[in-house]
């Protein structure tokens, strides 16, 4: 029990905030569509690639690439939202699974087609380390954690106090009743999807300089983690997602620190499963969705 455990907890929080950030979008999309989004990691990947493309073809300024990347992916999200996601409203759940699996294949392999299958190096970002004694951390990570906090505060506010936020809650509760009250469910789904995807893209861009190597299939493992986080946080629960993300990050980091990296994912999962045994609907399910 020394500074080592502290250091690992900090490491865990840093990793966990990335998990939480990606998962925030997915949990909102799940809330309105009741569909597991198997393609969510792909939007994360698209974000990274969009920023990489902006940096290597338009400008080498990373800060501009953040804006450009989010913008590009948002355009893609608008198209997919219209062409696919909004049509999943009221469809049997297998439609959601198949459609998102299909989307995931398409997005992954279109990127491979367009940019080649080989991995690319994402240069840029603020990677200078900040050193605190023998504990170091790049500026990029500090920014990532900061952005996570901001995004979650904003989401919480949006869901509680804005018209869109309330209608997201309404759609997640009762779709038929939304129709009766004239709430445009499809529009709400589109907007939620756009927000969710934009957040995923943002997290992809912010982690780009940390992950360094980028390739078309990099989203797949993210989807898995994200799914774990949103289940643990209680599906559709924004605050729960943040806490669950951080928790998973810390647990994983302790496992890697004390047992071994190769056991990290599976022990993390076992911890998650044990927790689910105690709270079958996630840590923060209860009544207060969102």
């Amino acid at each position, binding site marked *: 029990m020394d500074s080592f455990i502290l250091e690992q907890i900090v490491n865990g929080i840093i990793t966990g905030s990335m998990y939480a950030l990606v998962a925030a979008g997915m949990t909102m999309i799940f809330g309105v569509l009741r569909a597991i989004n198997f393609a969510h990691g792909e939007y994360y990947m698209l974000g990274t690639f969009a920023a990489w493309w902006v940096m290597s073809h338009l400008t080498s300024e990373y800060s501009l690439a953040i804006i450009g990347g989010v913008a590009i992916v948002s355009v893609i999200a608008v198209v997919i939202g219209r062409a696919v996601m909004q049509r999943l409203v009221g469809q049997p759940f297998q439609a959601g699974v198949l459609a998102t699996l299909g989307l995931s294949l398409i997005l992954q392999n279109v990127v491979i087609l367009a940019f080649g299958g080989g991995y690319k190096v994402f240069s840029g970002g603020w990677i200078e380390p900040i050193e605190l004694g023998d504990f170091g951390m790049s500026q990029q990570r500090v920014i990532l954690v900061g952005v996570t906090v901001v995004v979650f505060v904003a989401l919480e506010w949006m869901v509680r106090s804005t*018209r869109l936020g309330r209608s997201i809650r309404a759609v997640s*509760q*009762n779709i*038929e*009743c939304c*129709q*009766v009250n*004239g*709430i445009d469910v499809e529009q709400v789904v589109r907007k939620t999807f756009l927000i969710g995807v934009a957040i995923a893209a943002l997290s992809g861009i912010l982690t780009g300089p940390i992950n360094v190597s980028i390739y078309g299939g990099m989203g797949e493992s993210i989807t898995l983690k994200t799914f774990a986080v949103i289940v643990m946080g209680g599906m559709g629960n924004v605050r729960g997602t943040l806490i669950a993300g951080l928790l998973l990050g810390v647990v994983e980091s302790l496992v890697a620190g004390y047992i071994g990296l190769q056991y990290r994912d599976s022990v993390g999962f076992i911890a998650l499963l044990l927790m689910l045994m105690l709270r079958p609907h996630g840590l923060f399910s209860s009544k207060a969705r969102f």
Partner: protein
Amino acid sequence: MELEIDNLYAGYGHLDILHGVDLKIRHGEFVTLLGPNGAGKSTLLKSLFGMTTHKGGAIRWKGKDIAGLKPQAMLGHGIAYVPQGRCNFQLMTIDENLEMAAYTIKDGDLKGERDYVYDLFPILQKRRNELAGNMSGGEQQLLEMAMAVLRRPEILLVDEPSVGLSPQAITLVFNELKRLHKGGRTILLVEQNTRKAMEAAERAVVLRLGKVIWDSPCSELSNADLGELFMTGRRATDTATA
């Protein structure tokens, strides 16, 4: 003539439920729609609100054909619908529910609208910050009606509001319906509680097997007649009418 239904055919998917319904409702009328289970009463209301598959015939609203429009458009035309069974947002407060009901009112005066309904249903105001799901059945029914009334519709379609309510609560709901009617609103009410419905309404329409088989002022119809109508489609006392 406010609402004119002319030889309406409608159903679900390729299933026909309504086979040529004819019905005319004047402005400010309180009509109750009765009929055995599965007659298509709910289907008719849903069709008027654009929630079924339209197969043929016309629905004219103030002379305009509105058949086949989307629910949202119906709301825009001043039609509001309170469906069968619970339909509110259980995990939101009454205030929030009303706000969702006002969703389609673009940059409208939400607060004003809300005060207007709270005036109509003072019970709701008392519990405005409670979750809808925690209220009793009668109160939820009132909430749903309030959500429909909020948009100041010209016609209110109400499907079986008395189901599951205690006698007291039923009296409450029907009194409110009568008040709304007095306030000049057109009401089309579907009920199985025929006695209550005929007390409250002016005109009774009986639907059977997807067709209107009876249409008269309530006073011309007794409970015994109604039983025959439901069973055989004819009234015992005079077989000639229809």
